[in-house]
């Protein structure tokens, strides 16, 4: 039997997931990216390898997330897809008649509207990250709570307070104000959850027709306070799928399986990769006033890739060198 690997390198987490021919999830790994995507990919592969059945082979690899290009280059991917498509594919596989997907991750949030398993509309937050995972993390840390405790507390609220949700900076000052007035912690946290949901529906979900079944996925879906707030605001049941926090990786794995039908063999470089040393360095190109930051990737000390230059001067120079 053949296995397919999906890798989702996001701003906050790096996820790896392996499925079999029937789309059954064999193994999944959720890691914090911590600003070091290369290391987290390598760590993920290292953790994954011993957990996979020895006889099976990886027949295809897909990457997604904001670090998808980097991941694709590193492991040798068969398909590189944006996170919207990946999330939609995974959602439709988990709940075939799904019509709305609410996804909140570390740095961005999105909404996807589907009909008969095909995306008909989507939106992503543009210039503001209010209400995404990073903000919740920050607030939990400010109160000295783990994100898990923070989420559970919301459910104990008796009378959620109203918190300004327009902007995360204003939300924070509003929360501090309510704290100083003596409101209980659960009421404030539940109020914050409602504010974030309001903000999400007004910004990302603006003008979208959210019909059930509604799926809620992404790291923030672990927070039952937000789920409950969504159910209240939408007046419908909100489903959190089993693999809610690795849906991107699941979508990438499914897409890899689709892609491999069209091509002969996988580009996957194999698990030997974990033995290699990856390092990156960067320099400012002074060729024109754009002053691009060019990034160089070294594998075992050999310069293997460059990116970041607007005009492709450095990227091309390396490719020609490699081609010769």
């Amino acid at each position: 039997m053949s296995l397919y690997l999906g890798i989702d390198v996001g701003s906050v987490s790096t996820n790896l997931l392996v499925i079999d021919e029937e789309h059954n999830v064999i193994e999944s790994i959720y890691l914090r990216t911590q600003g070091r995507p290369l290391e987290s990919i390598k760590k993920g592969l290292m953790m994954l390898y011993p957990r996979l059945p020895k006889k099976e082979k990886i027949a295809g690899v897909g990457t997604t997330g904001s670090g998808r290009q980097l991941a694709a280059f590193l492991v040798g991917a068969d398909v590189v897809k944006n996170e919207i498509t990946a999330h939609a594919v995974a959602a439709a596989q988990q709940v075939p008649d799904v019509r709305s997907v609410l996804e909140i991750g570390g740095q961005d949030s999105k909404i996807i509207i589907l009909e008969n398993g095909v995306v008909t509309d989507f939106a992503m937050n543009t210039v503001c990250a209010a209400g995404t995972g990073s903000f919740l993390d920050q607030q939990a840390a400010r109160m000295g709570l783990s994100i898990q405790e923070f989420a559970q507390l919301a459910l104990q609220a008796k009378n959620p307070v109203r918190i300004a949700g327009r902007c995360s900076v204003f939300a924070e000052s509003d929360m501090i104000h309510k704290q100083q007035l003596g409101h209980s912690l659960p009421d404030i946290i539940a109020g914050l959850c409602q504010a974030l949901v309001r903000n999400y529906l007004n910004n990302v979900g603006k003008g979208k027709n959210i019909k059930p079944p509604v799926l809620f996925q992404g790291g923030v879906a672990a927070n039952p306070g937000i789920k409950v707030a969504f159910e209240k605001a939408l007046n419908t049941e909100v489903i959190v799928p089993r693999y809610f926090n690795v849906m991107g990786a699941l979508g990438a794995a499914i897409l890899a399986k689709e892609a491999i039908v069209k091509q002969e063999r996988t580009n996957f470089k194999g698990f030997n990769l974990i033995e290699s040393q990856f390092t990156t360095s960067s320099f400012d190109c002074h060729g024109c006033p754009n002053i691009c930051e060019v990034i160089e990737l070294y594998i075992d000390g050999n310069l293997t890739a460059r990116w970041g230059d607007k005009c492709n001067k450095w990227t091309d120079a390396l490719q020609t060198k490699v081609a010769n």
Partner: protein
Amino acid sequence: MKLTFPHMGNMYIPVKGLLEYLDLEVVVPPFSTKKTLELGVKYSPEFACLPLKINLGNFIEARELGADTIIMAGGVGPCRFGLYAQVEKEILQDLGYDFETLVLEPPDKHFGQFIARVKRIIGSNSWWKVMEAIKFAYRKSYAVDMVERKVQKLRPLEKKPGTVDMIYKHALNSIDNAQSFSTLEEATSLSLLKLDQVPIESDREVIKIGLIGEIYTLLEPFVNLDIEKELGKLGVEVTRSLYLSEWISSHLLKNLITDENIKPFRDLAKPYLNYFVGGHGWETVGYAVGFSQEGYHGLIQLAPLTCMPEIVAHNILGKVKEDCQIPILTIYLDEHSGKAGLITRIEAFVDLIRRQLETQRRLAR
């Protein structure tokens, strides 16, 4: 008098052509780069929209090259741009840059003043020569647009990525360098001929997308992060609601020249919007309807962040999307130069269209 003007896509080609035809000295600002943006952001009010910031950066960079007189367009109506020339003039004055600023308000509204300012620019040139120069500039803009339309058609089909854009760059240079009507014609036909020779894969499925929205973000690739080139890589043929020569003929030449590409946007927008909302908001709505009637697969609206006319249009487009059954994506552009976010959105948008087409085909079978 060393004249300069702000950049907006390929506009420098006809404007430079016009002024040089009149033997005036021109300083074209360096192409907009991060440095331009940095200079502009540093000295502009934070809440102004992106065009003002980049205009200002252009002027400062042109000053360093010796420009002393600015030609700038004014404007009427609810769009803030109408005031930008004045605001920019004041900021430059405060910074100690010694410029003379000639603001050209739309001739259809302020004819007398327009003529006076034009006289100041043209000096001792005869009106006959000015007419010739305008004709020359118009021809240049028309040539640029002809080449550009071909480039937009070929980008999704080229065998080796980048071939078309390499020729395009040379074509723009040769049109820019043409000094007479005959050399211009030669440069244009040679460029078109070269483009015809680009090896293509004609059986590739091409997605057709209409780009609509605010003029500056539509025309300036530095600001829209080269969205047309990026869409080309994804197999998309792009048509804009706005091309330079069309804009010139409808706004400056009062439609003396008819162009079959200009859509009757006021009629098309009728069920949705019947009023001038400033900038190009009306055109955005009208062209959205027009493109969808012509069978385009999707539309992308571009606008600077906080652009009022386009915000009005954006809210109306929801209804157009529903009625015309066409996917529409709105992208607001601001100082962020990171391309990753843009690529994710347009790639997902093109995926959406492709997967929908696949489903339609499956159902048809």
